Protein backbone atom coordinates (compact mmCIF):
# COMPACT_ATOMS: atom_id res chain seq x y z
CA UNK A 1 0.00 0.00 0.00
CA UNK A 2 1.53 3.30 -1.06
CA UNK A 3 0.43 6.79 -0.16
CA UNK A 4 0.56 9.35 -2.94
CA UNK A 5 -0.32 13.04 -3.07
CA UNK A 6 -1.94 13.67 -6.40
CA UNK A 7 -3.65 16.89 -7.45
CA UNK A 8 -3.88 17.99 -3.84
CA UNK A 9 -5.47 14.79 -2.61
CA UNK A 10 -4.02 11.88 -0.72
CA UNK A 11 -4.53 8.46 -2.25
CA UNK A 12 -3.85 5.07 -0.76
CA UNK A 13 -2.86 2.85 -3.62
CA UNK A 14 -2.67 -0.89 -3.49
CA UNK A 15 0.05 -1.48 -6.07
CA UNK A 16 3.50 -2.97 -6.15
CA UNK A 17 5.89 -0.15 -5.14
CA UNK A 18 7.93 -0.82 -8.24
CA UNK A 19 4.99 0.04 -10.50
CA UNK A 20 5.64 3.10 -12.63
CA UNK A 21 3.45 6.04 -11.67
CA UNK A 22 1.80 6.05 -15.11
CA UNK A 23 -0.05 2.79 -14.51
CA UNK A 24 -1.19 3.84 -11.06
CA UNK A 25 -2.56 7.08 -12.48
CA UNK A 26 -4.34 5.42 -15.37
CA UNK A 27 -5.50 2.14 -13.90
CA UNK A 28 -5.89 2.70 -10.17
CA UNK A 29 -6.98 6.33 -10.17
CA UNK A 30 -8.63 6.36 -13.61
CA UNK A 31 -6.85 9.53 -14.62
CA UNK A 32 -6.58 9.73 -18.41
CA UNK A 33 -4.25 12.70 -18.80
CA UNK A 34 -0.90 10.94 -18.71
CA UNK A 35 -0.55 8.69 -21.76
CA UNK A 36 1.59 5.66 -22.47
CA UNK A 37 3.83 6.54 -25.37
CA UNK A 38 7.06 4.59 -25.06
CA UNK A 39 7.69 3.46 -21.49
CA UNK A 40 11.28 4.56 -21.98
CA UNK A 41 11.29 8.26 -21.19
CA UNK A 42 11.82 9.14 -24.85
CA UNK A 43 8.61 10.85 -25.94
CA UNK A 44 7.05 12.73 -23.03
CA UNK A 45 3.42 11.62 -23.54
CA UNK A 46 3.31 10.53 -19.90
CA UNK A 47 4.67 13.79 -18.46
CA UNK A 48 3.36 14.88 -15.05
CA UNK A 49 4.67 17.31 -12.46
CA UNK A 50 6.52 16.04 -9.42
CA UNK A 51 7.27 18.84 -6.99
CA UNK A 52 6.97 21.28 -9.86
CA UNK A 53 9.34 19.46 -12.20
CA UNK A 54 8.22 17.80 -15.42
CA UNK A 55 8.80 14.07 -15.05
CA UNK A 56 8.26 11.00 -17.24
CA UNK A 57 5.70 9.05 -15.23
CA UNK A 58 6.35 5.90 -17.29
CA UNK A 59 9.82 5.40 -15.80
CA UNK A 60 9.17 6.68 -12.29
CA UNK A 61 8.36 3.94 -9.78
CA UNK A 62 5.90 5.03 -7.11
CA UNK A 63 8.29 3.95 -4.38
CA UNK A 64 10.28 7.18 -4.83
CA UNK A 65 7.20 9.41 -4.73
CA UNK A 66 5.91 8.95 -1.21
CA UNK A 67 6.77 12.47 -0.10
CA UNK A 68 6.14 14.20 -3.40
CA UNK A 69 3.41 16.47 -4.67
CA UNK A 70 2.21 15.08 -7.98
CA UNK A 71 0.14 17.10 -10.43
CA UNK A 72 -1.47 15.60 -13.53
CA UNK A 73 -3.38 17.17 -16.39
CA UNK A 74 -6.55 16.78 -14.35
CA UNK A 75 -5.02 18.92 -11.64
CA UNK A 76 -4.80 21.94 -13.92
CA UNK A 77 -8.49 22.32 -14.65
CA UNK A 78 -11.60 20.63 -15.95
CA UNK A 79 -13.48 20.62 -19.21
CA UNK A 80 -15.83 23.23 -17.76
CA UNK A 81 -13.13 25.25 -16.07
CA UNK A 82 -9.83 24.70 -17.86
CA UNK A 83 -6.62 26.07 -16.42
CA UNK A 84 -4.71 28.83 -18.24
CA UNK A 85 -2.46 26.46 -20.18
CA UNK A 86 -5.36 24.19 -21.12
CA UNK A 87 -7.44 27.19 -22.15
CA UNK A 88 -4.59 28.47 -24.29
CA UNK A 89 -4.36 25.11 -26.07
CA UNK A 90 -8.09 25.23 -26.80
CA UNK A 91 -7.91 28.83 -27.94
CA UNK A 92 -5.01 28.13 -30.31
CA UNK A 93 -6.64 24.85 -31.41
CA UNK A 94 -3.31 23.32 -30.57
CA UNK A 95 -4.10 19.67 -31.18
CA UNK A 96 -4.53 17.29 -34.03
CA UNK A 97 -4.86 13.79 -32.65
CA UNK A 98 -4.07 15.30 -29.26
CA UNK A 99 -2.35 12.25 -27.81
CA UNK A 100 0.88 14.12 -27.03
CA UNK A 101 -0.86 17.26 -25.85
CA UNK A 102 -1.33 16.40 -22.16
CA UNK A 103 2.42 15.87 -21.92
CA UNK A 104 3.05 19.14 -23.74
CA UNK A 105 0.72 20.97 -21.39
CA UNK A 106 2.43 19.54 -18.33
CA UNK A 107 5.87 20.45 -19.60
CA UNK A 108 4.66 23.95 -20.46
CA UNK A 109 3.13 24.22 -17.00
CA UNK A 110 6.46 23.28 -15.38
CA UNK A 111 8.24 25.89 -17.48
CA UNK A 112 5.74 28.67 -16.83
CA UNK A 113 5.67 28.03 -13.09
CA UNK A 114 9.37 28.77 -13.01
CA UNK A 115 9.50 31.38 -15.73
CA UNK A 116 6.24 33.03 -16.64
CA UNK A 117 7.80 34.96 -19.53
CA UNK A 118 10.00 32.51 -21.40
CA UNK A 119 11.61 33.36 -24.72
CA UNK A 120 10.73 31.36 -27.80
CA UNK A 121 14.06 29.58 -27.49
CA UNK A 122 13.39 28.71 -23.88
CA UNK A 123 10.00 27.29 -24.80
CA UNK A 124 11.46 25.14 -27.56
CA UNK A 125 14.24 23.92 -25.33
CA UNK A 126 11.83 23.11 -22.52
CA UNK A 127 9.52 21.17 -24.86
CA UNK A 128 12.34 19.30 -26.60
CA UNK A 129 11.97 16.08 -24.58
CA UNK A 130 8.39 15.74 -25.87
CA UNK A 131 7.48 14.45 -29.29
CA UNK A 132 4.50 15.26 -31.50
CA UNK A 133 3.88 13.21 -34.64
CA UNK A 134 1.01 15.18 -36.19
CA UNK A 135 3.20 18.26 -36.65
CA UNK A 136 1.17 20.48 -34.34
CA UNK A 137 4.35 22.15 -33.10
CA UNK A 138 3.62 25.66 -34.34
CA UNK A 139 0.31 25.73 -32.50
CA UNK A 140 1.78 24.23 -29.37
CA UNK A 141 4.39 26.99 -29.34
CA UNK A 142 1.66 29.59 -29.89
CA UNK A 143 -0.41 28.10 -27.07
CA UNK A 144 2.49 28.23 -24.64
CA UNK A 145 3.12 31.86 -25.56
CA UNK A 146 -0.56 32.61 -25.07
CA UNK A 147 -0.60 30.82 -21.71
CA UNK A 148 2.44 32.79 -20.68
CA UNK A 149 0.61 36.03 -21.47
CA UNK A 150 -2.46 34.93 -19.52
CA UNK A 151 -0.42 33.88 -16.55
CA UNK A 152 1.50 37.15 -16.54
CA UNK A 153 -1.74 39.11 -16.76
CA UNK A 154 -3.15 37.05 -13.90
CA UNK A 155 -0.04 37.71 -11.84
CA UNK A 156 -0.23 41.42 -12.58
CA UNK A 157 -3.92 41.41 -11.70
CA UNK A 158 -3.32 39.55 -8.46
CA UNK A 159 -0.34 41.71 -7.51
Amino acid at each position, binding site marked *: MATLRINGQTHEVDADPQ*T*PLLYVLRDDLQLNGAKYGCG*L*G*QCGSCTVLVDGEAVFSCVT*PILVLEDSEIVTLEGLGTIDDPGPVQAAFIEEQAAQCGYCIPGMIMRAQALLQKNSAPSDDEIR*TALSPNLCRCGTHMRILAAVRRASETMQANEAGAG
Partner: protein
Amino acid sequence: MRRILLGIVVLLVLAAVGFFALAWRSEIEPVTAGTAAEFDPELVARGAALAAVGNCIACHTVPGSKAFSGGLALPTPFGTIYSTNITPHPETGIGQWSEEAFQRAMREGVDREGNHLYPAFPYDHYTLVTEEDNRALYAYLMTREPVDAAVPDNDLPFPINYRPILAGWKLLFFDEGEFEPDPDQSEAWNRGAYLAEGLGHCGSCHTPRNRFGALESGGHWSGGEAEGWAAFAIDETSPAPIPWDGDSLSFYLANGWHPHHGVSRGPMAEVTENLGTLPQADIDAIAAYVASVMGEPDAERQSRAQQILQEVESGPEMQAVNAASQTEAGSSDEIGAAIYQSACAVCHEGVRDLPFGGLHLSMSTAVNAPNPQNLINLTLYGLPAADGVRSAMMPGFGAVLSEEELLALFTYIRDRFSDQPEWNDLAERIRATRSGEYHVRVLPSDGIERGPSNIGASNDDGDT
Protein backbone atom coordinates in the same frame (compact mmCIF):
# COMPACT_ATOMS: atom_id res chain seq x y z
CA MET B 1 71.27 53.82 1.04
CA ARG B 2 70.89 55.68 -2.20
CA ARG B 3 73.05 53.05 -3.85
CA ILE B 4 70.82 50.34 -2.54
CA LEU B 5 67.76 52.14 -3.79
CA LEU B 6 69.37 52.67 -7.14
CA GLY B 7 70.26 49.03 -7.24
CA ILE B 8 66.68 48.07 -6.56
CA VAL B 9 65.42 50.37 -9.27
CA VAL B 10 67.95 49.02 -11.73
CA LEU B 11 66.98 45.49 -10.86
CA LEU B 12 63.30 46.27 -11.24
CA VAL B 13 63.92 47.91 -14.60
CA LEU B 14 66.00 44.98 -15.69
CA ALA B 15 63.34 42.60 -14.54
CA ALA B 16 60.70 44.58 -16.36
CA VAL B 17 62.80 44.69 -19.52
CA GLY B 18 63.50 41.01 -19.20
CA PHE B 19 59.85 40.20 -18.66
CA PHE B 20 58.89 42.43 -21.51
CA ALA B 21 61.42 40.73 -23.73
CA LEU B 22 60.03 37.40 -22.65
CA ALA B 23 56.41 38.38 -22.94
CA TRP B 24 56.55 40.55 -25.98
CA ARG B 25 55.48 39.15 -29.31
CA SER B 26 55.31 41.13 -32.50
CA GLU B 27 52.14 41.73 -34.40
CA ILE B 28 51.91 39.93 -37.71
CA GLU B 29 50.67 42.11 -40.53
CA PRO B 30 47.00 41.70 -41.34
CA VAL B 31 46.11 40.21 -44.71
CA THR B 32 43.00 40.41 -46.81
CA ALA B 33 41.12 37.19 -46.46
CA GLY B 34 41.75 34.91 -49.40
CA THR B 35 39.09 33.35 -51.51
CA ALA B 36 38.26 29.71 -51.55
CA ALA B 37 39.74 29.41 -55.03
CA GLU B 38 43.20 30.16 -53.65
CA PHE B 39 43.29 26.91 -51.72
CA ASP B 40 43.84 23.50 -53.19
CA PRO B 41 40.65 21.48 -52.55
CA GLU B 42 42.74 18.51 -51.51
CA LEU B 43 44.46 20.60 -48.89
CA VAL B 44 41.08 21.79 -47.67
CA ALA B 45 39.82 18.22 -47.46
CA ARG B 46 42.88 17.21 -45.42
CA GLY B 47 42.25 20.19 -43.20
CA ALA B 48 38.68 19.03 -42.65
CA ALA B 49 39.89 15.68 -41.36
CA LEU B 50 42.46 17.38 -39.13
CA ALA B 51 39.85 19.75 -37.74
CA ALA B 52 37.83 16.67 -36.84
CA VAL B 53 40.80 15.24 -34.94
CA GLY B 54 41.21 18.54 -33.14
CA ASN B 55 37.48 18.65 -32.31
CA CYS B 56 37.75 22.37 -33.11
CA ILE B 57 34.04 22.75 -33.75
CA ALA B 58 33.08 21.72 -30.23
CA CYS B 59 34.72 24.62 -28.44
CA HIS B 60 34.46 27.14 -31.24
CA THR B 61 30.71 26.84 -31.81
CA VAL B 62 27.76 27.82 -29.69
CA PRO B 63 25.14 25.11 -30.23
CA GLY B 64 22.72 26.15 -32.91
CA SER B 65 25.00 28.90 -34.18
CA LYS B 66 27.14 28.88 -37.26
CA ALA B 67 30.04 26.48 -37.20
CA PHE B 68 33.31 27.91 -35.84
CA SER B 69 31.81 31.30 -35.00
CA GLY B 70 33.05 31.07 -31.40
CA GLY B 71 31.52 32.59 -28.34
CA LEU B 72 31.11 29.37 -26.37
CA ALA B 73 31.65 29.96 -22.66
CA LEU B 74 34.36 27.74 -21.23
CA PRO B 75 34.18 27.78 -17.47
CA THR B 76 37.61 27.38 -15.83
CA PRO B 77 38.62 27.49 -12.17
CA PHE B 78 39.89 31.01 -12.88
CA GLY B 79 36.85 32.44 -14.61
CA THR B 80 35.02 32.17 -17.90
CA ILE B 81 36.83 32.25 -21.20
CA TYR B 82 34.91 32.65 -24.46
CA SER B 83 36.12 30.76 -27.48
CA THR B 84 37.16 32.84 -30.47
CA ASN B 85 35.45 33.13 -33.78
CA ILE B 86 37.75 31.19 -36.11
CA THR B 87 35.78 31.77 -39.29
CA PRO B 88 37.52 33.94 -41.89
CA HIS B 89 35.47 37.01 -41.04
CA PRO B 90 37.86 39.99 -41.28
CA GLU B 91 36.64 41.87 -38.21
CA THR B 92 35.25 39.31 -35.79
CA GLY B 93 37.02 36.19 -37.04
CA ILE B 94 40.52 35.35 -38.21
CA GLY B 95 40.06 36.70 -41.70
CA GLN B 96 43.06 38.99 -41.35
CA TRP B 97 45.34 36.22 -40.21
CA SER B 98 48.09 35.14 -42.54
CA GLU B 99 49.12 31.53 -42.54
CA GLU B 100 52.20 32.62 -40.61
CA ALA B 101 50.01 34.04 -37.86
CA PHE B 102 48.00 30.84 -37.74
CA GLN B 103 51.12 28.70 -37.59
CA ARG B 104 52.43 30.82 -34.72
CA ALA B 105 49.19 30.55 -32.78
CA MET B 106 49.22 26.77 -33.04
CA ARG B 107 52.91 26.51 -32.25
CA GLU B 108 53.37 29.20 -29.60
CA GLY B 109 49.91 30.18 -28.35
CA VAL B 110 50.11 33.78 -29.56
CA ASP B 111 47.50 35.57 -31.61
CA ARG B 112 48.10 37.62 -34.74
CA GLU B 113 48.48 40.86 -32.83
CA GLY B 114 51.06 39.33 -30.54
CA ASN B 115 48.90 38.63 -27.48
CA HIS B 116 49.47 35.49 -25.49
CA LEU B 117 46.58 33.07 -25.60
CA TYR B 118 45.10 31.33 -22.62
CA PRO B 119 45.89 27.64 -22.55
CA ALA B 120 42.16 26.88 -22.74
CA PHE B 121 43.25 26.84 -26.36
CA PRO B 122 45.41 23.72 -26.00
CA TYR B 123 48.58 24.94 -27.72
CA ASP B 124 50.55 22.88 -25.25
CA HIS B 125 49.33 20.02 -27.49
CA TYR B 126 49.00 21.82 -30.78
CA THR B 127 52.63 22.83 -30.72
CA LEU B 128 53.32 19.24 -31.80
CA VAL B 129 51.41 19.71 -35.05
CA THR B 130 53.52 19.85 -38.21
CA GLU B 131 53.74 22.94 -40.33
CA GLU B 132 52.21 21.02 -43.20
CA ASP B 133 49.17 19.99 -41.16
CA ASN B 134 48.73 23.53 -39.87
CA ARG B 135 48.74 24.69 -43.47
CA ALA B 136 45.89 22.29 -44.24
CA LEU B 137 43.95 23.40 -41.17
CA TYR B 138 44.43 27.00 -42.18
CA ALA B 139 43.17 26.25 -45.68
CA TYR B 140 40.13 24.52 -44.23
CA LEU B 141 39.25 27.31 -41.82
CA MET B 142 39.81 30.09 -44.34
CA THR B 143 37.35 28.44 -46.72
CA ARG B 144 34.55 28.25 -44.15
CA GLU B 145 31.66 30.65 -44.18
CA PRO B 146 32.82 33.98 -42.72
CA VAL B 147 30.49 34.72 -39.84
CA ASP B 148 30.14 38.18 -38.39
CA ALA B 149 29.92 37.29 -34.73
CA ALA B 150 31.66 39.24 -32.02
CA VAL B 151 32.66 37.19 -29.01
CA PRO B 152 32.04 38.36 -25.43
CA ASP B 153 35.03 39.51 -23.40
CA ASN B 154 36.52 36.96 -21.08
CA ASP B 155 35.38 37.15 -17.52
CA LEU B 156 38.63 36.79 -15.60
CA PRO B 157 39.92 38.47 -12.44
CA PHE B 158 43.14 40.46 -12.11
CA PRO B 159 45.92 39.53 -12.58
CA ILE B 160 44.86 36.65 -14.79
CA ASN B 161 43.13 39.02 -17.17
CA TYR B 162 46.57 40.55 -17.88
CA ARG B 163 47.77 38.50 -20.82
CA PRO B 164 51.53 39.10 -20.56
CA ILE B 165 51.41 37.12 -17.34
CA LEU B 166 50.90 34.08 -19.54
CA ALA B 167 54.51 34.39 -20.60
CA GLY B 168 55.45 33.33 -17.11
CA TRP B 169 53.00 30.46 -17.28
CA LYS B 170 54.53 29.35 -20.53
CA LEU B 171 58.00 29.55 -19.07
CA LEU B 172 56.96 27.18 -16.34
CA PHE B 173 54.62 24.80 -18.11
CA PHE B 174 54.95 25.03 -21.88
CA ASP B 175 57.34 23.11 -24.09
CA GLU B 176 57.28 24.37 -27.62
CA GLY B 177 58.20 22.07 -30.45
CA GLU B 178 56.97 19.80 -33.18
CA PHE B 179 56.30 16.11 -32.60
CA GLU B 180 59.35 13.91 -32.80
CA PRO B 181 58.67 10.33 -33.82
CA ASP B 182 60.09 7.47 -31.81
CA PRO B 183 62.23 5.49 -34.24
CA ASP B 184 61.82 2.36 -32.12
CA GLN B 185 58.08 2.30 -32.67
CA SER B 186 56.04 1.43 -35.73
CA GLU B 187 54.86 4.01 -38.19
CA ALA B 188 51.27 3.46 -37.10
CA TRP B 189 52.18 3.93 -33.45
CA ASN B 190 53.96 7.16 -34.27
CA ARG B 191 51.03 8.34 -36.33
CA GLY B 192 48.72 7.56 -33.43
CA ALA B 193 50.96 9.28 -30.94
CA TYR B 194 51.21 12.33 -33.16
CA LEU B 195 47.42 12.60 -33.49
CA ALA B 196 46.56 11.75 -29.90
CA GLU B 197 49.16 13.89 -28.22
CA GLY B 198 49.00 16.75 -30.71
CA LEU B 199 45.79 17.82 -32.42
CA GLY B 200 43.73 15.20 -30.62
CA HIS B 201 44.85 16.73 -27.29
CA CYS B 202 43.55 13.75 -25.29
CA GLY B 203 45.65 14.82 -22.35
CA SER B 204 43.77 18.09 -22.07
CA CYS B 205 41.00 16.23 -20.31
CA HIS B 206 42.53 12.88 -19.38
CA THR B 207 45.53 14.30 -17.52
CA PRO B 208 45.05 15.95 -14.13
CA ARG B 209 45.83 19.67 -13.86
CA ASN B 210 47.74 21.54 -11.18
CA ARG B 211 46.51 24.69 -9.49
CA PHE B 212 47.88 26.83 -12.30
CA GLY B 213 45.67 25.00 -14.72
CA ALA B 214 48.62 23.25 -16.27
CA LEU B 215 48.89 19.55 -16.92
CA GLU B 216 50.52 17.77 -14.01
CA SER B 217 53.90 16.53 -14.98
CA GLY B 218 54.09 12.80 -14.40
CA GLY B 219 50.33 12.52 -14.49
CA HIS B 220 50.11 11.80 -18.18
CA TRP B 221 46.64 10.36 -18.96
CA SER B 222 46.09 9.26 -15.39
CA GLY B 223 42.60 10.77 -15.36
CA GLY B 224 41.30 14.31 -15.33
CA GLU B 225 38.13 16.27 -15.62
CA ALA B 226 36.17 18.05 -18.32
CA GLU B 227 33.06 20.19 -18.09
CA GLY B 228 31.89 18.45 -14.95
CA TRP B 229 32.66 14.94 -16.16
CA ALA B 230 35.39 12.62 -15.01
CA ALA B 231 37.79 11.93 -17.85
CA PHE B 232 38.89 8.49 -16.77
CA ALA B 233 42.46 7.34 -16.68
CA ILE B 234 43.52 6.00 -20.04
CA ASP B 235 46.88 4.75 -18.92
CA GLU B 236 47.62 1.47 -17.17
CA THR B 237 45.32 2.54 -14.31
CA SER B 238 42.24 2.57 -16.57
CA PRO B 239 39.24 1.60 -14.43
CA ALA B 240 37.37 -0.08 -17.28
CA PRO B 241 36.11 -3.44 -15.98
CA ILE B 242 36.67 -4.99 -19.39
CA PRO B 243 40.15 -3.83 -20.39
CA TRP B 244 40.40 -1.86 -23.58
CA ASP B 245 42.42 -3.13 -26.50
CA GLY B 246 43.27 -1.74 -29.91
CA ASP B 247 40.18 -3.20 -31.53
CA SER B 248 37.70 -2.06 -28.94
CA LEU B 249 39.24 1.42 -28.83
CA SER B 250 39.16 1.70 -32.56
CA PHE B 251 35.51 0.69 -32.68
CA TYR B 252 34.64 3.03 -29.84
CA LEU B 253 36.43 6.04 -31.29
CA ALA B 254 34.88 5.52 -34.71
CA ASN B 255 31.35 4.75 -33.54
CA GLY B 256 30.98 6.42 -30.17
CA TRP B 257 30.17 3.19 -28.35
CA HIS B 258 31.32 -0.32 -27.69
CA PRO B 259 29.30 -3.29 -26.44
CA HIS B 260 31.63 -3.73 -23.46
CA HIS B 261 31.99 -0.08 -22.60
CA GLY B 262 28.77 1.70 -23.43
CA VAL B 263 28.27 4.96 -25.29
CA SER B 264 30.48 8.01 -25.15
CA ARG B 265 28.78 10.93 -23.46
CA GLY B 266 29.64 14.21 -21.90
CA PRO B 267 32.37 16.03 -23.82
CA MET B 268 33.68 12.71 -25.16
CA ALA B 269 30.55 12.43 -27.30
CA GLU B 270 31.73 15.34 -29.41
CA VAL B 271 35.14 13.76 -29.78
CA THR B 272 33.85 10.46 -31.07
CA GLU B 273 31.32 12.16 -33.32
CA ASN B 274 34.18 14.02 -34.96
CA LEU B 275 36.54 11.09 -35.08
CA GLY B 276 33.85 9.10 -36.82
CA THR B 277 34.61 11.09 -39.96
CA LEU B 278 38.31 10.07 -40.06
CA PRO B 279 39.91 7.46 -42.29
CA GLN B 280 40.00 4.09 -40.55
CA ALA B 281 43.81 4.01 -40.65
CA ASP B 282 44.03 7.12 -38.50
CA ILE B 283 41.50 5.76 -36.03
CA ASP B 284 43.39 2.49 -35.84
CA ALA B 285 46.63 4.37 -35.28
CA ILE B 286 45.19 6.40 -32.42
CA ALA B 287 43.68 3.24 -30.92
CA ALA B 288 46.96 1.36 -31.19
CA TYR B 289 48.83 4.16 -29.47
CA VAL B 290 46.27 4.54 -26.67
CA ALA B 291 46.28 0.78 -26.15
CA SER B 292 50.05 0.83 -25.86
CA VAL B 293 49.86 3.54 -23.20
CA MET B 294 47.32 1.45 -21.30
CA GLY B 295 49.52 -1.61 -21.60
CA GLU B 296 48.51 -5.26 -21.36
CA PRO B 297 46.11 -5.93 -18.49
CA ASP B 298 47.43 -8.35 -15.90
CA ALA B 299 46.05 -11.83 -15.50
CA GLU B 300 43.80 -10.92 -12.61
CA ARG B 301 42.08 -8.13 -14.54
CA GLN B 302 41.68 -10.39 -17.51
CA SER B 303 40.11 -13.18 -15.54
CA ARG B 304 37.77 -10.78 -13.79
CA ALA B 305 36.75 -9.44 -17.19
CA GLN B 306 36.05 -12.96 -18.40
CA GLN B 307 33.96 -13.57 -15.34
CA ILE B 308 31.94 -10.39 -15.90
CA LEU B 309 31.30 -11.23 -19.51
CA GLN B 310 30.08 -14.70 -18.54
CA GLU B 311 27.78 -13.30 -15.90
CA VAL B 312 26.33 -10.82 -18.32
CA GLU B 313 25.73 -13.59 -20.83
CA SER B 314 23.83 -15.77 -18.37
CA GLY B 315 20.25 -14.83 -17.47
CA PRO B 316 20.61 -11.32 -16.09
CA GLU B 317 17.06 -10.97 -14.86
CA MET B 318 17.31 -13.88 -12.45
CA GLN B 319 20.48 -12.50 -10.92
CA ALA B 320 18.80 -9.20 -10.30
CA VAL B 321 15.85 -10.78 -8.59
CA ASN B 322 18.12 -12.79 -6.35
CA ALA B 323 20.22 -9.80 -5.46
CA ALA B 324 17.14 -7.80 -4.58
CA SER B 325 15.71 -10.57 -2.42
CA GLN B 326 18.92 -10.92 -0.44
CA THR B 327 18.74 -7.43 0.94
CA GLU B 328 17.35 -6.62 4.32
CA ALA B 329 13.79 -5.34 4.34
CA GLY B 330 13.48 -1.59 4.79
CA SER B 331 17.23 -1.06 4.65
CA SER B 332 18.88 1.54 2.51
CA ASP B 333 20.23 -1.31 0.45
CA GLU B 334 16.72 -2.55 -0.13
CA ILE B 335 15.65 0.89 -1.29
CA GLY B 336 18.63 1.10 -3.59
CA ALA B 337 17.86 -2.33 -4.99
CA ALA B 338 14.20 -1.51 -5.48
CA ILE B 339 14.97 1.73 -7.31
CA TYR B 340 17.52 -0.02 -9.46
CA GLN B 341 15.12 -2.84 -10.23
CA SER B 342 12.20 -0.61 -11.13
CA ALA B 343 13.92 2.32 -12.81
CA CYS B 344 17.22 1.02 -14.19
CA ALA B 345 17.02 -2.70 -14.87
CA VAL B 346 14.43 -2.43 -17.64
CA CYS B 347 17.09 -0.95 -19.90
CA HIS B 348 20.35 -1.95 -18.25
CA GLU B 349 19.40 -5.60 -18.06
CA GLY B 350 16.90 -5.48 -20.88
CA VAL B 351 16.82 -7.16 -24.23
CA ARG B 352 17.98 -4.22 -26.27
CA ASP B 353 21.51 -4.24 -27.62
CA LEU B 354 23.87 -1.34 -27.29
CA PRO B 355 24.15 1.43 -28.16
CA PHE B 356 20.39 1.90 -27.81
CA GLY B 357 19.93 -0.39 -24.88
CA GLY B 358 21.64 0.22 -21.56
CA LEU B 359 25.05 -1.18 -20.68
CA HIS B 360 25.07 -3.90 -18.07
CA LEU B 361 26.48 -1.96 -15.15
CA SER B 362 29.11 -4.55 -14.23
CA MET B 363 30.83 -3.49 -17.46
CA SER B 364 30.44 0.19 -16.71
CA THR B 365 33.58 2.23 -16.17
CA ALA B 366 31.50 4.89 -14.42
CA VAL B 367 30.38 2.36 -11.81
CA ASN B 368 33.87 0.94 -11.34
CA ALA B 369 35.81 4.19 -11.41
CA PRO B 370 37.43 5.80 -8.35
CA ASN B 371 35.19 8.81 -8.89
CA PRO B 372 31.37 8.56 -8.95
CA GLN B 373 30.81 11.80 -10.85
CA ASN B 374 29.77 10.37 -14.18
CA LEU B 375 27.30 7.98 -12.58
CA ILE B 376 25.80 10.93 -10.73
CA ASN B 377 25.64 13.05 -13.86
CA LEU B 378 23.98 10.36 -15.94
CA THR B 379 21.45 9.50 -13.29
CA LEU B 380 20.49 13.10 -12.64
CA TYR B 381 20.41 14.41 -16.18
CA GLY B 382 20.24 11.33 -18.39
CA LEU B 383 21.28 11.34 -21.97
CA PRO B 384 19.14 13.74 -23.99
CA ALA B 385 18.13 12.91 -27.54
CA ALA B 386 20.25 14.14 -30.38
CA ASP B 387 18.26 16.08 -32.94
CA GLY B 388 17.27 14.12 -36.01
CA VAL B 389 19.83 11.34 -35.78
CA ARG B 390 19.80 7.96 -34.13
CA SER B 391 21.24 8.32 -30.68
CA ALA B 392 21.31 6.59 -27.34
CA MET B 393 18.90 8.18 -24.90
CA MET B 394 18.33 7.94 -21.20
CA PRO B 395 15.82 9.77 -19.04
CA GLY B 396 17.21 11.79 -16.13
CA PHE B 397 15.97 11.07 -12.63
CA GLY B 398 17.11 14.25 -10.92
CA ALA B 399 13.59 15.51 -10.34
CA VAL B 400 12.33 12.43 -8.53
CA LEU B 401 15.24 10.97 -6.61
CA SER B 402 16.16 12.59 -3.32
CA GLU B 403 19.75 12.77 -2.13
CA GLU B 404 19.11 9.84 0.20
CA GLU B 405 17.60 7.78 -2.59
CA LEU B 406 20.51 8.59 -4.89
CA LEU B 407 22.94 7.62 -2.18
CA ALA B 408 21.12 4.34 -1.59
CA LEU B 409 20.94 3.63 -5.31
CA PHE B 410 24.60 4.34 -6.02
CA THR B 411 25.75 2.45 -2.97
CA TYR B 412 23.73 -0.54 -4.10
CA ILE B 413 25.01 -0.27 -7.65
CA ARG B 414 28.63 0.07 -6.56
CA ASP B 415 28.27 -2.88 -4.25
CA ARG B 416 26.56 -5.13 -6.73
CA PHE B 417 28.32 -4.22 -9.95
CA SER B 418 31.92 -3.66 -8.91
CA ASP B 419 34.53 -5.15 -6.64
CA GLN B 420 35.75 -1.67 -5.70
CA PRO B 421 35.45 -0.06 -2.27
CA GLU B 422 32.66 2.37 -1.44
CA TRP B 423 33.08 5.92 -2.69
CA ASN B 424 33.82 8.08 0.31
CA ASP B 425 32.95 11.36 -1.41
CA LEU B 426 29.66 10.11 -2.79
CA ALA B 427 27.25 12.05 -0.58
CA GLU B 428 29.14 15.29 -1.02
CA ARG B 429 29.35 14.95 -4.78
CA ILE B 430 25.64 14.17 -4.99
CA ARG B 431 24.87 17.27 -2.97
CA ALA B 432 27.19 19.57 -4.88
CA THR B 433 25.97 18.32 -8.26
CA ARG B 434 22.30 18.45 -7.43
CA SER B 435 22.56 21.93 -6.02
CA GLY B 436 24.28 23.18 -9.17
CA GLU B 437 27.32 24.18 -7.17
CA TYR B 438 29.27 21.71 -9.26
CA HIS B 439 28.73 22.55 -12.88
CA VAL B 440 27.94 19.82 -15.40
CA ARG B 441 27.44 20.27 -19.10
CA VAL B 442 24.94 17.79 -20.51
CA LEU B 443 25.28 16.63 -24.07
CA PRO B 444 23.38 14.18 -26.25
CA SER B 445 25.33 11.12 -27.27
CA ASP B 446 26.05 12.34 -30.78
CA GLY B 447 27.74 15.32 -29.26
CA ILE B 448 27.64 17.75 -32.13
CA GLU B 449 24.58 19.51 -30.83
CA ARG B 450 24.81 20.29 -27.19
CA GLY B 451 21.96 19.26 -24.96
CA PRO B 452 19.08 21.41 -23.84
CA SER B 453 20.33 23.77 -21.20
CA ASN B 454 17.56 23.05 -18.77
CA ILE B 455 18.72 19.51 -18.35
CA GLY B 456 21.98 20.53 -16.76
CA ALA B 457 22.06 21.40 -13.11
CA SER B 458 23.79 24.68 -13.40
CA ASN B 459 21.85 27.86 -13.73
CA ASP B 460 24.72 29.70 -15.27
CA ASP B 461 24.39 30.95 -18.78
CA GLY B 462 27.32 29.08 -20.17
CA ASP B 463 25.14 26.25 -21.24
CA THR B 464 23.06 27.49 -24.04
